[in-house]
């Protein structure tokens, strides 16, 4: 039996319908300009993103994976090097190290889903070149501790901020807390476009210059190729969409935080809910709860027409792709337990009050 969907886990069309006129006008404007690669909308979007993240440079690229990968290439990470990241993330966080020719060194996370600084410190070796803390689900990792570890070990910190645009930590925005940060503009992100896209933030002028070369065939001018690079550019059309949405992002994030507050107070007696620490501004890309009865609850909600999802059911170290890295099951107990107990509830700015109420009511009913 398939229940009628009453509260979809995601529904991108709600935001689209609200902005349709502006978005379509942007489409026509860019279309008529005949300039579809780089060009004025991309420049304007990069300027706006840099300002939003409080950094000197934002460099747009083809997607969030490339954003992290190109940073590793730009700082010279290669074969023989190690890159430390969290075992509980989207697979791209580990892939970037593999793609650069380095070895991803996975570490366990804390109950807040983010990388455990103690485990990071223990994983440092003479071969470590970079740490990639993942700001999972919209919550910034313990950057003070991580930056301290990185400074002592003289390694770079590259924030995986794919899920954290607009999040803050001790009042500083995601993207301004390490050497560089990689963001995703994938449609499902808090700032999402209508295709693949991403960007890098950094305060380092030389790094920014190198990244602009790497993303566009190494070209300094049309006829001067400084290095053999990649083609990883944000389409001008997508930049124009991003420019329309960016000014609305803070209000959307405020709304997601309000929904999180409602979920938290409604559900805290039944499941483990994420709590904000005083120095955190979490933007709730996902609202992740944990319960030992996760699978039953998901089925129950599905039957009640409420969408939910797991981010992520198979930890990176257990994926077939990670076989060569030699991590056995049981190596990262927190990640593995979370993989059995966590689930994400619908959370997006356009979620209606009656939908939020229904989610809370059904979960309460499940626990009787």
């Amino acid at each position, binding site marked *: 039996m398939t229940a009628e969907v009453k509260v979809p886990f995601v529904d*991108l069309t709600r935001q689209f319908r609200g902005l349709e006129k502006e978005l379509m006008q942007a489409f026509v404007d860019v279309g008529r300009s005949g300039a579809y690669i780089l060009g004025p909308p991309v420049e304007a979007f990069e300027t706006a993103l840099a300002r939003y993240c409080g950094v000197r*440079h934002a460099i747009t690229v083809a997607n969030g994976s490339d954003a992290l990968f190109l940073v590793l290439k730009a700082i010279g990470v290669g*074969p023989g090097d190690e890159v430390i990241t969290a075992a509980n993330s989207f697979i791209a966080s580990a892939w970037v190290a593999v793609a650069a020719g380095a070895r991803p060194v996975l570490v366990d996370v804390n109950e807040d889903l983010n990388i455990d600084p103690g485990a990071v410190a223990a994983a440092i070796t003479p071969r470590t070149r970079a740490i990639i803390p993942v700001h999972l689900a919209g919550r910034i990792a313990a950057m003070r501790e991580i930056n301290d570890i990185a400074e002592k070990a003289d390694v770079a910190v590259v924030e995986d901020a794919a899920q954290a645009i607009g999040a803050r930590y001790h009042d500083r925005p995601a993207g301004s807390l390490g050497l560089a940060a990689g963001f995703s503009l994938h449609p499902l992100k808090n700032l999402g476009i209508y295709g693949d896209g991403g960007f890098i933030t950094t305060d380092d002028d030389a790094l920014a*210059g190198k990244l602009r070369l790497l993303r566009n065939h190494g070209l300094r001018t049309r006829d001067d190729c400084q290095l*053999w690079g990649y083609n990883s550019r944000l389409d001008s059309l997508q930049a124009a969409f991003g420019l329309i949405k960016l000014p609305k992002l803070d209000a959307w994030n405020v709304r997601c935080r309000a929904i999180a507050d409602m979920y938290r107070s409604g559900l805290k007696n039944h499941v483990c809910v994420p709590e904000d620490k005083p120095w955190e501004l979490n933007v709730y890309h996902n609202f992740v709860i944990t319960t030992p009865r996760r699978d039953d609850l998901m089925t129950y909600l599905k039957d009640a027409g409420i969408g939910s999802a797991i981010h992520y059911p198979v930890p990176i170290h257990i994926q077939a792709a990670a076989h060569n890295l030699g991590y056995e099951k049981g190596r990262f107990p927190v990640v593995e337990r979370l993989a059995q107990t966590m689930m994400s509830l619908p959370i997006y700015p356009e979620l209606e009050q009656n939908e939020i109420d229904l989610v809370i009511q059904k979960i309460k009913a499940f626990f009787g």
Partner: protein
Amino acid sequence: MGKPGSEVINFLPDQYRTTNKLAINHNYLAEQFADHDVILAKIREVVIRGDFTLGEEVDKLETEFAALCNARHAVSVGSGTDALFLSLKALGVREGDEVITTPFTFYATIGAIVTAGAKPVFVDVRDDYNIDPGCIAAKITKKTKAIMPVHWAGRPCAMEEIEGVAAAHDIAVVSDACHAIKATYRGRQAGELGTVACFSFHPLKNLNVWGDGGIVATNSGELANTLRLLRNHGLFNRDECRVFAYNSRLDTVQAVVARHLMAKIDHITQSRIANARYFDVGLRGLNGIQVQQRDSRITEVFHLYQVLCDGRDSLQKFLVGCDVDAKIHYPIPMHLQPAAAFLGHAVGDFPIAESIARRTLSLPVHEFVTRAQQDHVISLIRKFYDR
């Protein structure tokens, strides 16, 4: 990382600067966009479905594209560059390998080889701008994993000879067909040439989208499956990652654009061919201009219409001064680029490529160019050399 304080670069290709549009242009995208209402409605449907990553439109495009170029499989990717790069990766090219190619190409050909970890080994071109098949065998070593011929400007390479050499040495042929959609070689479509054929949907290509995009055509089901994994994080399904791999997908909204324009590809191709013939007739025999020899066994699709000319830089300046967007593709061959310094080449290593780079000039040849505009260009060139 570079030294602190070094120059910050934000290079934007000049063909996208539309502020100083000329009367006769290379960039015709505003004209192409004229019937956007039709396509906008289709894109809206996709957006309303929330279909942004892969999905039905991408599947349909791949099926139609495979049929268009007579290949069993087509796998769309993020760009023509990625089509080349991922093909090399799918073939297992890695650190220490060598790939034989031409020095007369766009940067992406070499970028794909180098970023895949391999060393580009150059072979000079012939007068037709394409790799000289007779010189390839001498460059093959134990490290050679592939030959990457470039069908420059939409003119197919001497594939029988190239495939013969490759077969004799059991190495793959990765065709750079980024310029060559609908080109044919002795009755075979560009998509049938080589182990894989890589195409670009870059906005100024014969078949384009309105952003970056590319596609690989192949008859190998195994390579197609590998490419499908490589382009999408190595994901076999949402939760199962078989291999750590790339994100290189054609946006679903761009697949709509590609399908819309694919319906016009015969018209686009025939217009370019007709325009090129008209230039051939009008320019052949002019003082200072050398028109290419044509070969009846191949179909050139004229992504670019190029002639060799005396005093090329002065002619270009003169034409641009007369509002004609004459361009140079490209003035500096790959082996002489700063990025190639590590290969240790010098001026004179590939004399034909270097000579073409000094003398070649591209004239607008796309489907929106009119006969009157072509007559004007021809008369300007005649005037330039007669003065």
